[in-house]
């Protein structure tokens, strides 16, 4: 029998889109003769108590809530203390985190504190003979590894946008328990003084269903309306190649690739991007890839499901118009 503990991320008073995917992955652990005995959802934050019902709707058997002012900002010191309390209450065999910037910090901190194996950035997760078995891309996606953790408890982070989300069933209820971790500002050694350049309210790239990215072939930042308008027309968010970020045309948060973000949207549109191996590393697991490039030999066409050989300045406005029509 297996107990699963799932960390649900809820910045700004709302469950993140990844929360349903993490719950979906937890539920999917059953089968193969293994019985999932219970799923505990963990909420840590300021004002997250009200989200317990949402976690229950996603199928949690029990919701463990640590709600305090000290959790207003994510810090390893603060959140780890609460997470350790939650894990003590849950005694899980598997602890699931999203591979977001928060999950990527909290999961290894928990694994180190509990001497547990950690498997990161997974695209597949299952139980085999009691071991946690998983797949993860390595070498920037140039190979896929099948890995297994064999400590009593295994900590995992799951790549967003890959796992089937749990369907929310309104009205489902779960026991809610308050975790009093007793965390105060004094426990937090890394003090967040302010947040500069707040990330836009738009969906984070790693969670977006549709991404429209632009490359150096667009010649300059003054032409970015092409990318933005297309993104707007399809309800997507904007990404960029490193060449464009290095040139200062676009902020670093938008960079897709080995040294930027790894994304797996439903649709990735690459405009005037050559498709260097380091760029492909960040987007090759997208479900559908479209490329628009003047050079029919550009490597991006090797991974693109659909390509148009042509001048972005000519093709993109027409594409934008056609897609906008479709949505109205």
């Amino acid at each position: 029998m297996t107990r699963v503990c799932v960390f649900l991320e809820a910045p700004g008073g709302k469950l993140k889109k990844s929360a349903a995917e993490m719950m979906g992955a937890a539920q999917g652990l059953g089968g193969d003769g293994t019985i999932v005995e219970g799923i505990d959802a963990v909420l840590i934050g300021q004002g997250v108590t009200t989200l317990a019902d949402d976690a229950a709707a996603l199928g949690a058997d029990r919701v463990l809530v640590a709600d305090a002012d000290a959790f207003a900002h994510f810090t390893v010191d603060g959140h780890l203390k609460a997470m350790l309390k939650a894990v003590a209450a849950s005694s899980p065999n598997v602890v699931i985190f999203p591979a977001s910037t928060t999950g990527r910090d909290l999961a290894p901190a928990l694994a180190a504190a509990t001497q547990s194996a950690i498997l990161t950035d997974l695209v597949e997760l299952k139980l085999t003979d009691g071991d946690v078995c998983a797949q993860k891309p390595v070498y920037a996606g140039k190979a896929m590894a099948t890995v297994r953790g064999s400590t009593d408890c295994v900590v995992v982070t799951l790549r967003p946008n890959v796992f089937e989300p749990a369907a929310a069933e309104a009205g489902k209820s779960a026991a809610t328990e308050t975790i009093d971790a007793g965390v105060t500002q004094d426990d937090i050694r890394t003090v967040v003084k302010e947040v500069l350049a707040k990330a836009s309210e738009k969906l984070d790239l790693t969670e977006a269903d549709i991404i429209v990215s632009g490359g150096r072939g667009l010649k300059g930042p003054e032409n970015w309306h092409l990318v933005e308008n297309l993104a707007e027309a399809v309800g997507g968010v904007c990404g960029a190649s490193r060449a464009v970020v290095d040139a200062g045309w676009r902020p670093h948060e938008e960079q897709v690739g080995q040294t930027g973000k790894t994304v797996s949207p439903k649709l990735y549109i690459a405009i005037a991007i050559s498709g260097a191996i380091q760029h492909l590393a960040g987007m090759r697991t997208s479900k559908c890839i479209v490329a628009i490039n003047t050079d029919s030999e550009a490597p991006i066409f090797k991974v693109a499901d659909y390509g148009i050989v042509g001048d972005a300045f000519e093709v993109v406005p027409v594409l934008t118009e056609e897609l906008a029509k479709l949505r109205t």
Partner: protein
Amino acid sequence: MDIIVCMKRVPDSAAKITVAGDAKSIEQDGVDHVISPYDEIAVEKALQLKEAHGGTVTVVCLGVAAATKEIRQALAMGADQAVHLKDAGGNRGPLEIAQALAGVIKGRACDLLLFGKQSIDADNGAVGVMVARLLDLPVVSLVAQLDVADGRATVHRQSEVGTEVIEVTLPAAFTVQRGLAEPRYPKIKGIMQAKKKPLEEIDAPAPAGTMALDKLEPPAAREGGRIVGEGKDAVGELVRLLSQEAKVLS
């Protein structure tokens, strides 16, 4: 100020990765190795801090015997000394790597402990935070700016929230992000000096086997290469394919 940087030897980011016959490792032929790019940024930042504030820079590397080359590279850039935890083989998960690194760092003078945000072969982004936790040091990840004054560090962390300005009293650990520093090329003089700098070699503890690598395989091939057409005349067909075949426009 005493600074320790953990650096890993990895295949160059441009290397072609081919899975070897054992389906557990990669072909080494023709693969160049380098200091993992984020770790190289960490080494550079450590050198800049030392130049500004005085102190020492020690690099620690857990890796196979051949990693001596990358360690010498860091010494040639200007690090003062190195510890090579020699890996005789066996699979190591992040927990075992972190335990081994924490084991040699413990007890050494260290005001600042630097890591890359992730290694570009294992891509875990885990070891830095784990070592910090094992040593009970405060840790900030994804650091793109780092200033030190009066025993405190002020850093910029680039997270999904935005750019967070964070203060912490030293000693502390950080994992570094691109943009923090531009690694220098070693000069001839540095390369000559590197040969005489202290390089301590220690046998790494045998891995405990908490994480197994069962299989390595090439990524699922994409059936790419389908050119819908040329120029704006192809747009109509593309839109049709996206909505009817790929069904991604809902």
